[in-house]
């Protein structure tokens, strides 16, 4: 299975908007790669450029050994699953799945067999004669997947394929999709604005902002060591605590006290942003050096998210159920110094 090699791809739209700014990205064979970012960051444009739906203004694109930069979409041997699934309402499920094969001039009988096969592998057997309008959202999504699989592409391109499903189905479809890609071992590029989807699905991922890639790496790497404040704020199901302070001898000093740091190369007196995820902040008795009163507690299920006021700053901590304090309680706050990250206050970049 070939990977995808993107070399200094730039995309400017008419009117001078730069959607992609000299991007370099290398997606490996059989990898499940997620492109994550807020709306307007260029992630969908990048996916469409890989598909050939948007011609790149400059740069080159290889799929495996082939240079596909100038090829039309149909000759790139990719399959795309669109956000709205793009199922044709006037065709049955079977016709929808077989349509790519019809384009490739596969004989009717063979393409119907292949459609049955692809549909069967996604448990669509009973629905083959229905029309898309008669299917539920989850079924439509599986038809779109079956149609992509029937193409036997070199690369799957997914454009937020779960965003039209409701919350419960989305979780199930997520696990299903991950298993499917693992079994097929086909390279996949997956666009999403939902960080939890990217973390859960991807082997590696890129976080984009304003047409640029801000960080590339494994989900664990991006979760634990976001390279800048943008990535830090974007990843994590509860927002990372970001507190502005000054590096001192015992840690980072701010209006509410001193935050512990394991070791740092940041010079004393430097203005930094101290970042720590709520998952790595503990609560203790009010005797701790850092202590404040509880403002809000939010039930997360098996955990609680507790917001504590420290001077003018707020810090959030997740605590196991049963250990949550009451609103107004005075509690101590114990950030895990080894998990703390320091960012340059001016540049927003991670200090090593």
């Amino acid at each position, binding site marked *: 299975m070939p990977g995808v090699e993107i070399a200094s791809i730039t995309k400017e739209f008419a009117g001078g908007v730069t959607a992609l700014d000299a991007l370099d990205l290398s997606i490996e064979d059989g990898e499940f790669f997620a492109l994550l970012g807020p709306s307007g960051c260029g992630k969908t444009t990048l996916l469409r450029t890989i*598909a*050939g*739906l948007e011609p790149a203004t400059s740069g080159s694109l290889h799929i495996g050994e082939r240079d596909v930069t100038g090829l*039309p*979409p*149909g*000759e*790139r041997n*990719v*399959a*795309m699953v*669109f*956000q*709205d*699934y*793009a*199922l*044709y*309402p*006037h065709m049955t499920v079977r016709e929808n799945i077989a*349509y*790519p094969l019809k*384009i*490739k001039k596969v004989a009717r009988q063979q393409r119907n067999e292949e459609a049955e096969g692809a549909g069967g592998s996604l448990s669509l057997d009973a629905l083959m004669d229905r029309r*898309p*309008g008669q299917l539920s*959202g989850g079924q*439509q999504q599986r038809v779109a997947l079956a149609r992509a699989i029937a*193409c036997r592409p070199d690369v799957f*391109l997914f454009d937020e394929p779960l965003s*039209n499903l409701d919350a419960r189905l989305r979780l199930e479809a997520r696990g299903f999709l991950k298993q499917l890609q693992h079994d097929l071992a086909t390279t996949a590029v997956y666009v999403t604005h939902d960080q939890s989807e990217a973390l859960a699905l991807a082997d590696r991922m890129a976080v984009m902002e304003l047409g640029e890639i801000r960080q590339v790496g494994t989900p664990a790497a991006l979760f634990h060591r976001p390279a800048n404040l943008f990535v830090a704020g974007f990843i994590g199901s509860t927002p990372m605590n970001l507190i502005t302070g000054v590096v001192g001898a015992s840690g980072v000093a701010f209006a509410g006290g001193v935050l512990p740091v394991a070791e740092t190369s940041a010079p004393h007196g430097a203005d930094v942003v101290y970042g720590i995820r709520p998952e790595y902040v503990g609560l203790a008795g009010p005797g701790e050096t850092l202590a404040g009163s509880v403002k809000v507690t939010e039930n997360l299920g098996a955990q609680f998210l507790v917001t504590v006021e420290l001077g003018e700053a707020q810090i959030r901590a997740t605590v196991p159920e049963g250990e949550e304090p009451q609103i107004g309680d005075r509690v101590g706050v114990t950030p895990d110094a080894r998990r703390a990250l320091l960012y340059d206050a001016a540049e927003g970049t991670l200090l090593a």
Partner: protein
Amino acid sequence: MKPFVHRVLFAAFASLIGAFFALPMLWLVFAPFDESPSLSAAVPRPPTLSNFGDLFDNPQVLRSLGNSLLLVGGVVGLVLIVGAPAAYVLSRIRFPGRNLFLYMLLLLSSVITGAAAIVPLYLLIFGLNLIDSFSGVTLALAGGMLPASIFILKDFTDSIPRSYEESARVFGASTFQALRDVVFPVVRPGLAVIAVWTAVQVWGNFLVPFILLRTPDKSPAAVLMYSFYTEGGQPNLRLISAFSLLYTVPILVLYIFVNRRYGFRFHGGIKR
């Protein structure tokens, strides 16, 4: 809003519509079968077909209906052939001032088909040497209908997600294949609506054929209707009522046929 207020408003509205439409419509249904129709709508006793017998003694009656059908066919064909691609392009390409352009078109069309531009139009058709020809009338009517048709068809095309064509292209379909396999089948009900609408408008248009045609034998039904009205000063209500009904039937048939065939379903994409 209290439901009561709603109900009163609705009743008032319904009566108003009734006043405007019911009376003429009732007359249209009853008078043709009345031996001596009057100006009020009354159930004829006994009903008779003699008005129609007298009507068909005039050879122009059937010929004018045939002429009308010919014009309708030509204009509907031209509007669909030119309007559909134009609407598609307008729907898919964004260019600066596109919306202004569309609204200008829409307003222009009512000017063209109204009396405002009838002189320039006459001059244009005269310049093309198409006076007293069906081609000239067809061109003029199609030109008048096109802007609004393009506008409505563009709206239909807008409701087809681009992802339909894009997915077809990723699968390797050519532009033509994507249009034929995916866009056309979905936009077909829209084309049906435009066809019916254009047909109704052309069928009822009096001014353009009246100005551009000279030979009475080429007159469409709308023009003949007018000649019945003025002929001899006093309108012949027996002939007029019978012809009015005859004149209405093809439109009803077309509407019912298209509605049954295409159902006027306005599904653009898949409903969720």
